């Protein structure tokens, strides 16, 4: 079965499960609600002579059903029109699925059993998002779900995964335990291919030219021994909410484990890149509170690595050179505050030591500031976000102004732009191609 057929088959299966679930829950003595939204999203790349990068309409459906006080179910799915017609050959023109391609995503589908197995314990099982940490999107202790870097506008977004979560509430203490049976990797940004080719190019011996580049990914095997586990203990101390957490699993961002460059002539090399997902343990601490009206939060993670190797092999005509770097244990943290002024002007600032994709000791510092002001009886919200990449001086900046208009109930229209600049070799330099202007409209029902 080719990929297209598999995809089509899966789509039908998902639709079937969805309809079946809704029908079942509706027919039972359940209190069921169906909500959703319609979202339109048009984006134009400004660096690339007005090329449309996104051209999407999304129908999101959310169903929540409470069978009793003890049992509830929740499901959320998205049906998204793809950006462009998928025409690669004349025969594709006869296929509606190629002319107007559609994607389907089951975002969440889980079952809640409250007071199970003990009255003070709640169980949630299924495809779910388990959000840990107190920071605003720049979380360091939130390792249970993989990143979704497919959309730069949704910085720090995560993908719900199949898991089991038990939460026990004992007095002021909350103890959460989670198990994620199968590893799911992060969805990488569209610039990820550029990142790999840039890394390969940076490792080429001088005077050599790349002929071919082969890249492969090794995922952890889907075995019980590779299941991931996490636990968190939370409580309030002196008015501040604090948590201690532990995660044992895999880093969901690929590691360039091996780059083998083989000389095929005196001036040419071929490259093979192997990526893997190293095993990690994360010991986390987070805090949130308010002091004199100012919201404060902090997250710190100590990451213990296991066999986290990055190797470059250079096969010359007669000799072989191997350079090995090992990522040792390291610490990442985020500190932040927010404040609403009496005139409703809102500021939110965070310092992040160690961006999402960074490992080891050589971590960068990011400063993220968001300013918000609602005007005209909250009909319009003005937002300005600035992300600065700091390494003794600011080596990259992302400017993100946005205006949101609420013309009617449950309706919002957003116009925004992203402007990214970075010094050569910096993280934001690779993302400069994502400079864009976007227009989004969303109606919830």
């Amino acid at each position, binding site marked *: 079965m080719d990929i297209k057929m598999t995809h089509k088959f899966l789509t039908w299966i998902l639709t079937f499960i969805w309809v079946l679930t809704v029908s079942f829950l509706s027919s039972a003595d359940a209190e069921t609600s169906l909500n959703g*939204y319609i979202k339109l999203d048009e984006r134009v790349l400004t660096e690339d002579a007005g090329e449309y990068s996104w051209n999407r309409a999304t129908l999101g459906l959310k169903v929540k059903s409470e069978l009793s006080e003890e049992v509830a179910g929740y499901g959320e799915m998205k049906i998204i029109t793809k950006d462009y017609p998928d025409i690669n050959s004349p025969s594709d023109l006869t296929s509606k699925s190629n002319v107007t391609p559609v994607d389907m995503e089951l975002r969440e589908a889980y079952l809640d059993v409250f007071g199970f197995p003990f009255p003070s314990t709640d169980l949630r099982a299924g495809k779910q998002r388990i959000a840990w940490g*107190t920071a605003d999107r720049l979380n360091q202790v939130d390792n249970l779900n993989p990143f979704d870097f497919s959309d730069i506008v949704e910085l720090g977004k995560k993908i719900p995964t199949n898991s089991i979560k038990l939460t026990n509430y004992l007095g002021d203490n909350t103890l959460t335990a989670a198990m994620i049976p199968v590893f799911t990797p992060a969805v990488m940004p569209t610039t990820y291919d550029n990142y790999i080719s840039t890394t390969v190019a940076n490792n080429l011996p001088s005077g050599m030219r790349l002929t071919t580049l082969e890249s492969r990914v090794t995922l952890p095997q889907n075995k019980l021994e590779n299941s991931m586990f996490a636990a968190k203990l939370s409580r309030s101390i002196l008015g501040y909410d604090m948590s201690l957490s532990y995660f044992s699993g895999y880093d969901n961002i690929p590691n360039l484990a091996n780059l083998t460059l083989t000389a095929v002539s005196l001036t040419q090399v071929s490259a093979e890149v192997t990526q893997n997902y190293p095993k990690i343990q994360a010991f986390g601490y987070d805090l949130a509170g308010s002091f004199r*009206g*100012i919201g404060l939060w902090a997250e710190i993670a100590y990451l213990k690595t296991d066999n986290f190797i990055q190797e470059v092999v250079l096969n010359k005509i007669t000799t072989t050179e191997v350079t090995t770097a090992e990522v040792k244990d390291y610490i990442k943290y985020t500190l932040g505050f927010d404040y609403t002024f009496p005139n409703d002007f809102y500021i939110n600032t965070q310092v992040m030591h160690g961006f999402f994709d960074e490992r080891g000791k050589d971590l960068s510092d990011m400063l993220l500031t968001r300013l918000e002001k609602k005007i005209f*009886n909250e009909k319009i919200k003005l937002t300005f976000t600035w992300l600065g990449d700091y390494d003794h001086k600011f080596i990259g900046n992302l400017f993100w102004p946005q205006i949101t208009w609420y013309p009617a109930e449950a309706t919002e229209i957003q116009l925004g732009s992203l402007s990214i600049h970075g010094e050569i070799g910096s993280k934001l330099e690779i993302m400069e191609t994502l400079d864009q202007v976007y227009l989004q409209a969303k109606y919830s029902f």
Partner: protein
Amino acid sequence: MLFLILVAGTIIFAEETIKKTQAKELTAREILEKTDAQNDTRDQFSQIKMTLIDKSSKESSRKVTLWTKGDRKRLIKFLAPADVKGVGFLVLDADTPEEKMYLYLPAYKKIRRIAGSAKRGSFMGTDFSYDDIGSSNYSQDYDPERLPDEEHQFVLELKKKKDSEVGYDKLIAWISPEVFVPTKVEFYKIKRVEEKESFELAKIMTVEKIENIKKYWMPTKLVMENIDKEHKTILELDQIEVDRGLSDELFTLRYLQR
């Protein structure tokens, strides 16, 4: 028979006169404490409909469910419009230095701690602040002073206490002497111009309907008008239940996200 009617009439007149005399003798602090006591329920449940009206008379609405326990615990669940349905707001140790506010966002499956400064902001775009919703203990935050009665109503000037963090600097409240419920409240903020301070009228709240629920007299329809924005919000309480013994467990992070 005539004698009996005369005696009854005399007794009723005497009672009214005594009541009025007693009422006239009440101090500002006593009036305020009696007003606070009217809302001194052990716990309360209600569904609230809020109708927002802008200066061009365009209307929109919001719906929430509110649970309170004493003065210190509040839980609000947003029912409508659809884009905020499922959002929850929990306040613990309300109006104390230890106050904690949490917002549950179902789209992110996350509970966020909210800074104290946010409570001055508008509640869901209405003319009520987060502080206004469910809060009515005036004695705690204001020092009262009695002004001359107007149209058979007590009039109190309430000035913010130095250590209070409420969003208004002064209130003028008209209070019904029969049921000790405010029928109108003017909210003032300090305006500073060239080192001179003056009180500027920010909002006016008018109570349009008062109902007796169990032993409590409660406003069930209020209008809050924002003077500067020329915008008003009509707040209507429905399905009110008081003193039904709500469990403390309801006011926890566990129930906030259910």
